[in-house]
């Protein structure tokens, strides 16, 4: 099982770095999804490791929450794009010191 969890960690880290480096809001969002998927992988792996289905159920809930999140997140991106004509997360930086 170690290899699955390690893969999960690698994917999660890649997702994190993507969030930090990419500026297109949609790509940033994709990287968030990547992180969620990485954690799902770990859940499913642990489910097999421990022989009960709670991990799979959790992964299922994560998917549901991710779906809801994507809907709202993309709607927000749309709204921002509509007013600012830009999908860059750096452009929405007015709330500062």
């Amino acid at each position, binding site marked *: 099982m170690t290899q699955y969890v390690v893969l999960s960690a690698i994917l999660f880290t890649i997702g994190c770095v993507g969030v930090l480096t990419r500026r297109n809001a949609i790509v940033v969002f994709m990287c968030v999804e990547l992180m969620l998927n990485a954690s799902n992988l770990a859940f499913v792996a642990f489910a097999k490791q421990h022989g009960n289905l709670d991990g799979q159920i959790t992964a299922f809930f994560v998917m549901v929450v991710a779906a809801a999140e994507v809907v709202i997140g993309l709607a927000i991106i749309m709204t921002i794009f509509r007013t600012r004509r830009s999908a860059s997360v750096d452009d929405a930086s007015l709330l500062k*010191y």
Partner: protein
Amino acid sequence: MNLLSHSVLLAAEGTEIPVVAPDTGAGGVFDLLWLVIALPLLGAVLLLGVAPFLPASLRATVDKHGHLLGTATAVASFVLSLVLFLSLLGRDAESRQVGQELWTWFETGSLSVGMDLLYDQLAALFLLLITGVGSLIHVYAIGYMEHDPRRRRFFGYLNLFVAAMLTLILSADFVGLFLGWEGVGLASYLLIGFWQHKPSAAAAAKKAFVINRVGDIGLSLAIALMFATFGTTDFGAVSELTGEADQGTLNALGLLLLLGACGKSAQVPLQAWLLDAMEGPTPVSALIHAATMVTAGVYLVVRSNFVFELAPVAQTAVVVVATVTLLWGAVLGCAKDDIKKALAGSTMSQIGYMMLAAGLGPVGYPFAIFHLLTHGFFKANMFLGAGSVMHGMDDDVNMRHYGALNKAMPVTFLTFAMGYLAIIGFPGFSGFWSKDKIIESALADNLLVGLLAMLGAGVTGFYMTRLMLMTFFGEKRWAKDVHPHESPKVMTVPLMVLAALSVLGGVLLAGDWIVTWLEPVTGHAEHHEPPLPAIVITLLITLVVAIGVAAAWFLVGRRDIPREAPQDVSFATRAARADLYGDAINDAVVVRPGASLVGGLTTLDRVGVDGAVEGGSAAVGGLSTTLRRVQNGFVRSYALSLFAGALLLVLVLLAVNLG
């Protein structure tokens, strides 16, 4: 109730200090005791509290006739006091302490203060003095204040004063006494500054108020100490418990009470306010700053005899303060050209005599009260006479502008002369009996004090003769357009009554009546034999006074008096004109160090405290200015710190779990 069975035996002196134990169930007319206070209080409430809110037409009527209401309440109070006094006379000598418990004023912790009244021989005399002289002065003020647009308010203040003074006298508890004490202070402040449009009057009122507060601190600390020591502030309870307290506490208590008395009675070192207080209308000077309020300190000492009898240090302090004051006031009286200020110096001096007597213990208490009463008569008489003179001289108070008024104002002259003869102690007049007794007792107690008191009597003769000569005799030195005239009846009649009392006040001593009367309150004392026979002392005093009078005749009466005060005078005269530098001393000892201290504290506060606070805030502000750069608005930066935090957490977890 047998009072003597309740007395505390003072073994060393062989004197008995009576315990205050009023009979609260006397009934009859004594149930109306509260009315003595309530009547003038009602007058004050109506004239001050209700009248300003009346509709304009009604208020005009009240403004026009309000003084009648004020006078009526005072007179009614006097009549009631007289009835009470007669009722008290009708009781047994041993049951003449009557009390009335009105309500519980407040209860906090173990302290319970009742609004209780105490009517005994001492209070009875005071009640008669306050309401009697007060009524006369109310009547006099009707004439004196006739043209003042705020006469209604003046009478409201007078009523307020009378109510507060009666509270002070009748209260059976030190806290209640303090209530009246502050009430008369307030009334005094309001009345000194009654003509507030004059800056000097406003300043004098403030000065009196502030100096009185110093004394009040003494009294309030005394009350606090009393509560701490005895757990009660009731006269009766305290008088029973003083025997058990230790000497140091009692001395401290006595000195604190003396401080309070000094403030109210203008004794050295808190004397500076009294001369300035003459800025008030003359009836006020007569009632408050001569006859009644300023004697409250004497009352306090006599009433607290159960403390002072057991506190020899405090008692000695009373004698010292009194002796200094009686000479101080007399010296001031010699130099002042302002007739009211000369009389005020005289008042200070005479209260010094009373305090001296009060400091002598049970021997002196009755004579202190006796002198207080006679002084109340003759000094009120003279003040009102001075007011009458001012009335005729267009409110000029400078005696150098008077002269030869005996022809122009015969009634004023004659009544004033009665007061004059009384105060210098002309044989047979009231002041003769009272002052003579005090000096005699002082000589018996301490030769030096007695001789100084005798000297004071001589100086009294000098300055009072000087005042008489400058005012009523000699050449006319009037200002051009002044036409002196006799005052109206409403002013002269009170003068006549008071003159009669000044002459006849001595009858109170007939057969030692007042000594016997007050004995249940002040305690019985065996008279020490004076160093000389009493008759010799009396002759000596008369001789000293005669020398003073003669000196005045030679120095003042036989010379021409310049209209302007000469400037090339001796140092002593200059010092006396400057109130013996009382203000300068206050300024140097209290005001300037206080101002420096406050200035220093302000600087310390501004530089030290404010510096620390503002420096701290500036440091925080600067740090924030730097730190806020972190809030750069880029969500990816925030994510980076979040991610770094997660890294740290994982590291910590690993360190804990694997380490």
